[in-house]
């Protein structure tokens, strides 16, 4: 926490993975959710997702839930630290958007 976090730029994949985990979800569910959230624009590949999940677990931005008996689909959920990171990212994105619209004189609906 603290100043160092404010200069972190999340990748699009990580941002959407974190957003997908405000409720517990398993790997394949994350992929489908992201494709849905982005209207089909972001198709996260399995290898990339798995690597990102590994890193997010290491950073404690997400945690793995205890597996239900018989279910082999591990579920993940965002942690408080992860939510902080998302908040910071959203203010960063707002800043980018405001500046973009100001300078290009357009609105995001065009």
């Amino acid at each position, binding site marked *: 926490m603290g100043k160092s976090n404010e200069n972190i730029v999340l990748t*699009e994949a990580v941002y959407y993975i974190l957003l997908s985990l405000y409720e517990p979800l398993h790997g394949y569910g994350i992929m489908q959710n992201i494709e849905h959230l982005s209207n089909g624009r972001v198709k996260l590949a399995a290898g990339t997702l798995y*690597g990102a999940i590994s890193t997010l677990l290491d950073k404690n931005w997400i945690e793995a839930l205890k597996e239900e008996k018989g279910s082999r689909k591990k579920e993940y959920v965002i942690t408080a630290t992860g939510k902080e990171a998302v908040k910071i990212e959203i203010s960063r994105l707002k800043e980018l958007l405001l500046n973009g619209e100001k300078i290009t004189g357009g609105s995001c609906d065009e």
Partner: protein
Amino acid sequence: MSKVIHKWFWAWDFEKEEKWLNTMSENGMKLCKVGLCRYTFEKCKAGDYLYKLEMLDNDVTTDKSKEYIEFLEDTGVEYIGNVLKWIYLRKNTSDGEFELFSNIDSQIAHLIRIMKLLFIVLCAEVLIGLDDSITFITNIATQNIELINMFGLLFLFLYILLGIGIYKIGTKIKDLKNKRVLQE
């Protein structure tokens, strides 16, 4: 009825290997079993499958690797088999594009994994064969033809071969890093 083909691909040519498997699929042959230099195919509808290879960080028997393979299977990917740490995967063409890595960072990470392996092999070869290679070179230089050391020649050849492989992967990594300046 199955057909067995013997073929060798270098680790740095895994994309070539993927292309070959995809071409076999277009010609109505699907890969069912894989071993060292040994590919077993069966007839299938033309273009039914797309193939991808990945070199894992850990042995396929470890928990981590098993977990990853299970994860891939949950996403509709079929696991065909492995040769050492290389896993062979296929997906139905009807499911759309088949990629394992959708951003540059994860592609680079995979290539670095392969590069590390090549370096380890090169180091092992240097440890084993440096002596012989130097003897070979000095013999050539001093024109001592009778003492030509075949082992030396072999190892020199291997060093060059691996050097080429490492260079090829290094170039791919460099190109991806350049691409990453603009995009993810």
